[in-house]
């Protein structure tokens, strides 16, 4: 059979394709629907949080930080509860990372503050002596891209039924309603309101002034995102 295949490139290629496609079908398909159900307490990202997620991706934070707490005592001691599949239901793309040059950030919102992040991004050594992380000073001057964020919210709401403007159940029995704007102008207003809550805890006068002018520096969006990781 193999000799015959080697003289017939088309059937050879078909044979190779069947051999390599097999594993994907068996491993990926069966749990596909099951794995994407959200757990209680998981809500979609707000406009500013999602903009911050874009800043996180733009700067490849995932090159050095994971977002996956494995079920070991040493990890739950350090980072909090181990990760559940449903917690990632609104993560497109996933940001588990593959290398911990720095610590995991899955639940960083539980133990770091806006103030800490502000100092850390300006000068990591000021809060973590010995840190090898570079400073991310340009985040304080670049503006977050709210337009693209809004386009993404519209896309996921339409194609993947992400529950914006709907009540989603929280762990304490309450409900949360994450607002998505009806227009681009409203998206900017929503993001700006969220930004003001963040800058209330920040010290950098230039950032505060920018937000008062109606601009949103990347750092504000990033901190909103990091604070949402719980």
């Amino acid at each position, binding site marked *: 059979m*193999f*000799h015959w295949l*080697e*003289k017939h*490139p088309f059937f*050879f290629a078909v044979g*190779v*394709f069947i*051999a*390599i*496609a097999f*594993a994907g079908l068996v*491993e990926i398909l069966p749990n*596909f629907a099951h*794995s*994407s159900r959200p757990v209680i307490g998981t809500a979609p990202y707000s406009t500013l949080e999602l903009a911050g997620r874009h800043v996180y*991706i*733009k*700067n*490849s934070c*995932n*090159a*050095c930080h*994971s977002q*996956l707490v*494995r079920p*070991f*005592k*040493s990890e739950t*001691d*350090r980072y909090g509860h181990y990760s*559940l*599949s449903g*917690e*990632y*239901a609104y*993560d*497109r*793309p*996933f940001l*588990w990372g*593959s*290398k911990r*040059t720095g610590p995991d950030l899955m639940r960083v919102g539980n133990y770091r503050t806006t103030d800490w992040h502000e100092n850390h991004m300006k000068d990591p050594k000021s809060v973590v*002596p*010995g840190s*090898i992380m*570079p*400073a991310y*000073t*340009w985040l304080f001057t670049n503006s977050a*891209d709210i*337009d*693209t964020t*809004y*386009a*993404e919210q519209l896309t996921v709401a339409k194609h993947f039924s992400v529950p914006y403007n709907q009540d989603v159940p929280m762990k304490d029995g309450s409900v949360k309603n994450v607002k998505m704007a*009806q*227009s*681009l102008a409203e998206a900017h207003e929503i993001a700006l309101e969220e930004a003001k809550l963040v800058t209330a805890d920040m010290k950098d006068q230039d950032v505060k002034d920018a937000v008062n002018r109606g601009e949103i520096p990347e750092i504000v969006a990033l901190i909103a995102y990091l604070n949402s990781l719980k």
Partner: protein
Amino acid sequence: MENRPLEYDYTIAKMFMLTTIVLGIVGMLIGVILAFQLAFPGLNLILGDSLAEYTNFSRLRPLHTDAVIFGFTLSGVFATWYYVGQRVLKVSMAESKLLMTLGKLHFWLYIVVVAAAVFSLFAGVTTSKEYAEFEWPIDVGVVVVWVLFGMSMFGLIGIRREKSLYISVWYYIATFLGIAMLYLFNNMEIPTMFATSPAGESGIGAWYHSVSMYAGTNDALVQWWYGHNAVAFGFTVPIVGMIYYFLPKESGQAIYSYKLSLLSFWGLMFVYLWAGGHHLLYSTVPDWVQTMASIFSIVLILPSWGSAINMLLTMKGEWQQVASSPLIKFMILASTFYMFSTLEGPIQAIKSVNAIAHFTDWIVGHVHDGVLGWVGFMIMASLYHMAPRVFKREIYSKAIMTAQFWIQTLGVVLYFTSMWIAGITQGMMWRAHDEFGNLAYSFIDTVTVLHPYYAIRGIGGLLYLVGFLMFAYNIYKTMSSRPIEERELQSASPMGA
């Protein structure tokens, strides 16, 4: 005409040889910069404060991985295909105008896509998925380039004189199919520019932005099915194809066992794809997938070692060539590193070992003993074998080759030993508890302790880069300074003299 050997046309092979070398230098140079940035963080500002956004570690890291995978390695695969393909199929590219045009189009579009990719990654336009960072417009470009490669490959196969496909061709076909399938499925994404707001606005935001079709755990599963197997079909399959051609040619020995090559080829095809999930052990993907991935990773030793042993046994009775020919040295060391790396990987895929190894520098070490020791050595050896025949001149300097071999070998050894120690140290410190059951170390303790290993790794990488520059110089001199031979060299090895 009747008995004259075929004159092959290496126009396109030459073009891709050039990009192999140029993109190799770019990818490795960025790698060395990254390595030293971890040891000496001040280097994140290597071009000053104002350009820090573009020179810091995290922005450069995807450029390094993509330049080495899609630049250096893929160029090497294309260059060797346009050389090996003609010779084992006994047909010249010059025989078909259409194939020549397709080949040239393949090259120039590849250049355009590479330029777009470099530009977009510097700008921070990325999907964040490893080795699939490109946004959808570049993905479209990649698909077009790949289709052109396929058309040119199957076109050449279509007009072949030798009816039986040689082993190397099997591997090139598998490379084409594997990457096509993986790349398409992993990059399924919806461009956000098509969204319309309730107020009727459309075309909002960046036109190149997209959102993944998969979420969370599913996205991770598809990504590592891709990520692991992009390694398989980029770093393993075509490189095995190369050694099956170049080692017998260079040594003048016949392949040791046809049956072993059959077993390892079909074994590799079937087993490799299952193993992707070993990147996700102890994550939220289903437990049975993790176990399956772990088991198949162990099984993967068989077909991998099958090829490697077949190569080593091909040298049976001719081992003195390893001492006398630097080119044989490169290939034998490459297949040895292949064995080494394909044993190390399965060990890391055992769940209890992975619990320590995952997220640490040991994984980085594993990737690099594979890529530097196996992929890099084999591509350089292939180009060294091709150069005298393509340029019809002898290799400029055998002494440079030998020196380069030892410098780079030392570089690889420094690289993986330092990363082993770093990775296992870090893995053990993360999990260490004191007598009261509290964590023994804060995270930063596990970072500062790695400084000496990061420095050694940087030196190892630098040595490898120096060796690669010697290789580039040697090839350049081969192209330009020696007198042209009248005909293509026919002897088994131009090194033999």
